[in-house]
């Protein structure tokens, strides 16, 4: 009769658990604020928007910066560093909507041409909030 050697079982268990541990260690990421992001402030009207410089980074289910100030019609880049899909969707009349942004993907959208404050969410994870200020 075929027997299952306990030593082999122990080794196999350790191997599998090591593999599981290795895959989990790659998930502990450190959130890094994007260097090109323009941290918004209410008094940042003097910020000179450079085309393509406005960026929102999604990491650990958080939009960074939480508030971004851009000029009307400016291109905004969105980088998704999470393992799951996200969206950047303006609430209300959906002045902008990136659609699904897959894990690791980057997309862009055009800021509204009308000045104002545009709250946005991820439609998949609706507890995620951010604000785009057009001024």
């Amino acid at each position, binding site marked *: *009769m*075929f*027997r*299952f050697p*306990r030593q082999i*079982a*122990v080794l*196999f*268990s350790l191997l*599998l*658990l090591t*593999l*599981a*541990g*290795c*895959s*989990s*260690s*790659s*998930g*502990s*990421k450190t959130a890094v604020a994007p260097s090109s992001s323009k941290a918004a402030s209410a008094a940042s009207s003097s910020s000179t928007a450079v085309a393509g410089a406005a960026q929102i980074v999604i990491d*650990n*289910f*958080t939009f960074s910066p939480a508030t971004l100030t851009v000029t009307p019609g400016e291109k905004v880049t969105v980088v998704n560093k*999470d*393992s*799951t*899909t996200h969206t950047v969707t303006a609430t209300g009349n959906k002045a902008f909507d990136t659609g*699904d942004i*897959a*894990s690791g993907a980057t997309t862009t959208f055009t800021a509204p041409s009308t000045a104002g404050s545009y709250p946005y969410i991820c439609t*998949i*994870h609706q*507890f*995620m909030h951010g604000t785009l200020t057009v001024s």
Partner: protein
Amino acid sequence: MAAVRLILRLVAALGLAIDAGIHAKLAPQYDAVTTATISQGTLFRIEAGAAALAVVVVLLWRRWPGDLFALLTATAGLAALLVYRYIDVGTLGPFPNMYEPVWFTDKVWAVIGQALAMAALLPLFLPRHRPAGPRVE
């Protein structure tokens, strides 16, 4: 027959290890889902820990209570994943709203691991056929 059971245990352990690894990997990110007492990240760590323990009991202990524990771990994990993929349950007691209507690579791998474990563990509960021994008159 013993060789088949060995292969089933190895496959089940592999599936459970995938389940454990994916949940442990995703847990830090899902700590952000804290709409209730327990965060989704904590639930992922519980699933990862249970699946890792199940790997050990399936391979080393090799008794039906351990196999049942492993089967329940995989089944509960798969059921929760599918429910929250398709149904907006909302917050449920201490559990957060884990509704996430998308598929992505890690989620698919978790399903594969859990389904693999279930498929391999279920046959272990079938009654074993023992060869009839010599009859003693």
